């Protein structure tokens, strides 16, 4: 049977599901970040932790709160990973090496979830549930909080650089959005056949008399927040290709839905927070156009599948689960790299050169289509500021965004944001391919070898977490390099975003005049999408041409 119809059918189901869920969740998120009332359970938490949730924080205090909270998270996960054999519920797992524990701690705190280890043979239940799963919630919440702070900054005026209260935002995001959302999603996943128990490995006798170890655990509950929070780190090494984690095409499509729903909903919430739904609509339109293009191109690349074996098989099926096929694998790959999820249901190393290059390009785009929870929105808004600035220069209009004047200081922050991740990626790949220890981790040589290393540093710097495969990354060199890229790739942009939020919050909101570029019209959406593509193209095409493009042309 032709694969085209199922491919289009799954996309149609996904679009309908998102169209129903995004407005609902968008309204919920907008309410969460603008409501002045605290729930009882939240008030109790504030009392216990001696926090004042009504203290409106200056952006610098907000940023320091984010940094302090995240640093404590790194130390907590690091300690659990190192002390694992001495702690309860470790189910016999050994201690992580120091470099591996640090990489894992940074990885989960930064919402990257890069995994150098095999979950089923290295992480016990305590580490999974108390360390990694907790970070799955709070790291996703941090992204949403930062996006909410930026939206507030744009909505307020003359607020003295105050952008909200991080502790209140964090608590509300977890209590009102992520915990109930993940609970419902986990129930659905259990109903769809995902494993959920507290057992360790179970040994069974196979039909031919052999013995096999089946790893169990709280899989559905972790899978729910793994996808909903655009985390991506799974309890199994095969991630979403494992039948216990992702058993059917329906659970696969549900996983894609979970990845996309909060990033799109946050863009909807943005329109409500700034009290101009059209602004959120433009952001959603650009996100949708970029994601749709990516899905289309990736599906085409995998279905066309150059080479003798792919053409005999009818598609590039190497490294793909036959339960899902190439269309669902391409959809998953586009969604996981368009968001900051990084979960995989196929081996990205086995994608066609064009497909692998597209997955990399999605991440290089800054994961804005639709991006991670919160990070997608603030990434897109930073590009919107660049767009109004460039458009202003082109047509002589005053650079303003939502009534906020875009001056030298604003552009300094935005330029820092736009440059931060590419600098990390390009410096990272330079270090990786010039160091002996870096080259030692590569399985392949030539363009594909470069792609393996480039994918890893791109994934880490953009906090995606998916791996190309082929790279042996569990070494002190790679664990430390990728850890540093993840840490600065997450928090350097966040500091700049919060600084801009504070800057906007302190400024007056100017009324729109005849010289104001309308930012709610289709022309602006086209400009915004164009700026995103051109900025990335100019930055990364040289290195892409040495890796996946050279491989595709050879």
């Amino acid at each position, binding site marked *: 049977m032709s694969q085209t119809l199922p491919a289009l059918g799954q996309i149609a189901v996904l679009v309908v599901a998102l169209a129903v869920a995004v407005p609902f969740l968008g309204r919920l998120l907008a309410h969460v970040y603008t409501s002045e009332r605290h729930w009882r359970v939240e008030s109790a938490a504030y009392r216990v932790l001696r926090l004042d949730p009504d203290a409106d924080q200056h952006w610098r205090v907000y940023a320091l709160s984010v940094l302090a909270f995240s640093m404590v998270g790194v130390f907590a996960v690091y300690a659990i990973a190192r002390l694992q054999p001495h702690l309860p519920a470790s189910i016999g797992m050994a201690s992580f090496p120091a470099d591996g524990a640090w990489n894992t701690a940074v990885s989960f705190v930064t919402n990257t979830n890069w995994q150098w280890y095999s979950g089923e043979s290295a992480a016990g239940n305590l580490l999974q549930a108390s360390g990694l799963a907790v970070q799955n919630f709070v790291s996703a919440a941090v992204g949403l909080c930062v996006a909410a702070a930026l939206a507030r900054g744009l909505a307020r005026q003359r607020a003295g650089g105050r952008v909200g209260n991080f502790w209140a935002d964090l608590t509300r995001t977890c209590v009102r959005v992520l915990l109930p959302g993940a609970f419902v999603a986990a129930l659905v996943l259990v109903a769809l056949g995902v494993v959920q128990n507290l057992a360790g490995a179970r040994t069974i006798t196979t039909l031919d008399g052999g013995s096999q170890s089946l790893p169990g655990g709280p899989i559905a509950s972790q899978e729910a927040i793994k996808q909903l929070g655009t985390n991506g780190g799974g309890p199994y090494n095969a991630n979403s290709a494992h039948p216990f984690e992702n058993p059917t095409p329906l659970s696969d499509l549900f996983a894609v839905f979970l990845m996309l729903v909060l990033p799109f909903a946050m863009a909807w919430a943005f329109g409500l927070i700034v009290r101009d739904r059209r602004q959120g609509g433009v952001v959603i339109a650009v996100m949708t156009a970029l994601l749709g293009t990516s899905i289309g191109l990736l599906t085409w690349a995998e279905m066309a599948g150059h080479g003798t074996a792919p053409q005999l098989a009818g598609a590039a099926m190497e490294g793909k689960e036959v339960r899902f096929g190439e269309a669902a694998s391409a959809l998953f790959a586009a969604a996981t790299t368009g968001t900051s999820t990084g979960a995989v249901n196929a081996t990205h190393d086995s994608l066609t050169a064009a497909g692998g290059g597209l997955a990399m390009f999605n991440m290089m785009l800054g994961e804005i289509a639709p991006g991670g929870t919160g990070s997608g929105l603030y990434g897109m808004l930073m590009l919107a500021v660049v767009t109004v600035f460039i458009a202003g220069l082109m047509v002589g209009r005053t650079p303003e965004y939502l009534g906020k004047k875009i001056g030298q200081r604003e552009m300094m922050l935005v330029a820092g944001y736009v440059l931060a991740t590419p600098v990390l990626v390009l410096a990272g790949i330079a270090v990786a391919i010039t160091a002996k220890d870096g080259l030692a981790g590569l399985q392949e040589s030539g363009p594909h070898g470069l792609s393996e290393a480039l994918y890893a540093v791109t994934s880490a710097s953009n906090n995606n977490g998916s791996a190309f495969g082929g790279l042996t990354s569990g070494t002190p060199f790679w664990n430390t390099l990728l850890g540093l890229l993840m840490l600065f790739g997450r928090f350097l942009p966040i*500091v700049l975003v919060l600084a801009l939020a504070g800057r906007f919050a302190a400024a007056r909101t100017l009324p729109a005049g005849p010289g104001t570029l309308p930012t709610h019209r289709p022309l602006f959406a086209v400009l915004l999408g164009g700026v995103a593509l051109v900025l990335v193209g100019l930055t990364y095409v040289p290195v892409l041409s040495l890796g996946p493009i050279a491989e595709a042309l050879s």
Partner: protein
Amino acid sequence: MSDLLYVLVTLLSFGSLALLAGLIDRRLADPDSDHDADVPGSAADARPADAAVPATSNGGRR
């Protein structure tokens, strides 16, 4: 020994980011700012109207 190394790397990384936040704040508060009436700490920001805005409010944007 390696534990101490990674603890130091973590402290230095987050410390440098905190330092950067402080530097940016000072830079933005510079009186040479292009619209210094709007920068944090300036007299214009001491206006009481927005000082009472709740932490989670979007500022009653009109």
